[in-house]
């Protein structure tokens, strides 16, 4: 907290939040574009219903406004770490499937993956400013890639991108919430402490 109290830390936090918000916004924009491309290239129906992706925390949450800042950061970090793993798996599967045939889709997925990584970095930096430090990724091992069929993998990828888009919206709101003065934010116990 001492670091958070210093003017430079506050500026750093404000900067991280600000850019995190814009990154989330761009990530959402790009994911939405990627979703359209993905549906088109994978031959899927945009209105297809997809089950919740395993290993990804749901963006929707009850009593969202009652969450503390750290709690928000930890939930976001967990989600984006999961997305990073999932998107990496999708990118690998895409390369295996199409090679360099659909490079544009692969570049778009790689770009989103980078943004997810960047956003996770933002979250980790914010958590450091909160004097909490980011939780170790080892505490949240990536879910093993299920052995799915090709179509199922496509649907799963569609589910991942949809959930990512929703998380991008939620993350922007979370960070905006963090920029507001919230005296009780640090009193909320962090989920990161309990693996």
């Amino acid at each position, binding site marked *: 907290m001492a670091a958070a109290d210093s003017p430079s830390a506050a500026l750093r936090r404000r900067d991280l939040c600000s*850019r995190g918000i*814009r*990154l989330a916004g761009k990530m959402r924009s790009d994911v939405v574009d990627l979703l359209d491309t993905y549906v088109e290239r994978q031959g899927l129906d945009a209105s297809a219903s997809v089950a919740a992706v395993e290993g990804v925390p749901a963006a929707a949450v009850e009593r969202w406004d009652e969450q503390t800042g750290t709690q928000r950061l930890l939930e976001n970090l967990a989600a984006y770490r999961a997305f990073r793993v999932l998107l990496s798996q999708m990118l690998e599967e895409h390369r295996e499937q199409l090679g360099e045939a659909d490079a544009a889709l692969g*570049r778009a997925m790689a770009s989103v993956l980078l943004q997810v990584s960047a956003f996770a*970095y933002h979250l980790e930096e914010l958590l450091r400013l909160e004097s909490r430090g980011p939780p170790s990724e080892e505490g949240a091992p990536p879910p093993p890639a299920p052995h799915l069929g090709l179509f199922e993998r496509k649907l799963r990828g569609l589910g991942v991108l949809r959930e990512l888009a929703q998380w991008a919206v939620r993350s922007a709101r979370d960070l905006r919430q963090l920029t507001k003065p919230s005296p009780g934010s640090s009193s909320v116990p962090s989920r990161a402490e309990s693996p």
Partner: protein
Amino acid sequence: MFSGWNWVAHGLYLLLNFCSLEVSGGLVQSCGHIIPESPVLALGSNFTALCILNESCLDFGNIYANQIIWKIKNRVVPKEQYREINRTVSSVTFNDTSSLATPLTCNILADGQIEQNIYGIAVTIGLPPEKPKNLSCIVHQVLKLTYPMTCTWNPGRHTFLDTHFRLKYRWPQENFPDCIPKDVNNSCTIPDVQFFVNLEVWVEAANALGKAESDPLVLDPIEIVKPLPPHNLSVNSGILPTVLKLAWENRISGALMKLKFNIRYRTIGDTNWMQVPPEDTASPRTSFSVQGLRPYTEYVFSIRCMKEDGVGYWSDWSEEKTGVTTEDKPSKGPPIWRIIDASRSPAFWTVHLMWKALEPFEANGIILQYEVTVRAKSSPSSPPEKYDVNTTNLTLKLPNGTYEVTLIARNRVGASPPSVLLIPATNSKAPVKNVRTLPKDGKLWVGWTAPNSYVLKYVIEWCLVSNSSDCIIEWQNEPGNVQGTYLKGDIKPFKCYLITVYSLYADGQGSGQSVKAYLQQDRPSKGPTVQTKKVGKAEAVLTWNHLTVDEQNGFIRSYTIFYKTVDGNETAVTVDPSKTEYTLSSLTSDTLYTVRMMAYTDEGGRSGPDFTFTTQKFGKGEIEAIVVPVCLAFLLIVLLGVLFCFNKRDLIKKHIWPIVPDPSKSNIAQWSPQVPAKHNFSSKDQMYPEGSFTDVSVVEIEADDKKSFSEQDLKPFDLLKKEKSTSEGHSSGIGGSSCMSSPRQSVSDSDEGETAQNTSSTVQYSTVVLNGYRDQTPVQVFSRSESTQPLLDSEERSEDHSGGADSTSQRQQYFKQNGGQDETNTDRPCFERTKQITPTNEGDLVGFAQLQISGQSSQLLGLGLQKNTQEAALPDVLQTSIEGQTVRPETVEGNPPSVDEMPKSYLPQTVRQGGYMPQ
């Protein structure tokens, strides 16, 4: 033994050669090698190389390290740089690698004579890379979702080595693959970057001599974005005639970047852009309404964008789009002016109304027509006359009076405010003063001093003054609060403009004040043609014509007259430009002068053609002063001569035309006994009355020694002849003898010249022509006698006696004038005159014979007889002449004897010794 060693040495040589082949071909082991192998050295550093000989080679030929020679290319390295480390190793050291070159070879002297290469290395010299500087990056948006980042840097000095640059970047938690430049060493482009995360960027340069890294650049790529400009720009006119609405599309996501904009616009044909205030477009948007535009005007718009907070780069300007505002009613009335022509009729004016079309920004649309209203101020009750005109002028014929002309321009939206002009202008109002001009920036500025009273507006009239065209008036209006303006029109340089400024008031007008001006002056296009009007002895009046206004090209400031003689210096005289005549003075008389003339403007002068003239030799009146007196003197002399001649006319007459005696009156004519009946003296006397003869006979006598006897000397003979002519009793014997031979001839020979006939038969008489004188019919013509027959025997004797031989050498001519005796002496006795003969008494000459006689002899001659004395007779003659002064001849005038009684000697003379004795 010796041959055996020799054989060994030869074998060693072959071995060394073989070893060399191994070095070059790598087939066999070398006898040594150099350490280090192919080094890369920093320029300017020191370097040491070792040449290590193989032990195997030592055994063959006693080769040791002290025999090693180092070479750079073919140049031997000085031995001071060698160092024998041991028997197989030699080193060479270079303090500065700049002296190195490739190859560096290790050589050995075999047998102390033969140099053989052992090994060689290639040396590479260069520099380590410098730290790259000035690293900067920019993210260009090339597509909606593609943001490559290009970084540039300064690679530093040339290293002479293969140096690799790498652009490295990373996130704090993630590294990215390096960006390796292609074909360049100072920039690299990362294909896609992610925003909102700080990116650390740096450049690494590396070559064989080292590695260097630039300072890292930490940035969020979103801060260095140069976005694509907005596209699909559209311009739409709004309801208001001064507003256009712009709309566009942004090509960068609002989630990524919030934008601000710049909007610029200009009218068609204008090159200068105007810009919407940036604060009005500092927020994200996709449309904007531009206000404050001119109605019915076509505008060009363009837009650009950048990150809202100003961090980053402006995009390029978008494509240009045009839009036209809607029409509005004209904002002002057209400027109007008039030309009043009162010359055609005293009661009516021809008024040329003219106005200027409104500028587009004033017309605010298409002017459909003009409405002109003319209202007579003198009769307000009369209705105004209205004219609808489509052109910009109107000619009216109005009775003399005061009128108010109102002009309105009308377009589709409405009418302009009226323009009012009073006709005629009563020039009683205060005019402007001090009208002046000034060329400025290629235009002609006109300034004036405003009157004290309030001026509604000014009208500036101008026209080009030219000989070849009329003065076509152009004009312009200026508001009343200005005191100068530029002429709006095509003002040409080198042309003269007449500019007039009028001050217009609400109720009248001031008189126009004019000035002439040039936008730009030049030298005159030609010089004045000078010629002389009058040339004198020392002065010449030159005259010339002014240059025409088209030739002047500027204000003629002065004339300069240059004149010179053929070999003299040129003299210049400056003349006032208003003059057309000048008098050159102090010229040299009778000299050829060349004169030319230059006209000067402010920009220089030009000379006219040369003109030559010659000054006169005499001044005015000099010739008259000489000629007139000369003429007068001549006339006076002539007059005096005439008067003298007139006064002495008789003397001259007698002198020039001596009296030739009329032979018909001679006594011998009457005396001839053979034809007495025929001799009709009376009839002859009637025919030739005495004194009526004026015919002149000239007797010339040529003699060796000429001497004219004075008339005094001849007077006695005249008297004698007269007496003989008038008295028949005095007949000459000679005449008688003459008549005896031939009456007619006797007439001729009976003259006093019969003495000549007596002299010799060869005497030739001159032709005596008796022309009619004073309307008298000539009686006879006497031709030269060709007769050689003596007239008389006595005469022949006489001639013989008197020495008539002289007639062969002399020729005598006689001129006779009958009746020419001096009247004053007619009464005088002949003898008395004879006494008075003196050679000097010429003034008393009354004789009619002119006598020339040779010698100094003076001889008494009777009846005009001229006798040429011969040499033999000369003493007698001299004696006679000496004594002749006192000779008093005996006269016979007392009683003239009859013919029969006439003695042969008709002239009694007192003869002394040797004297002439007439028979």
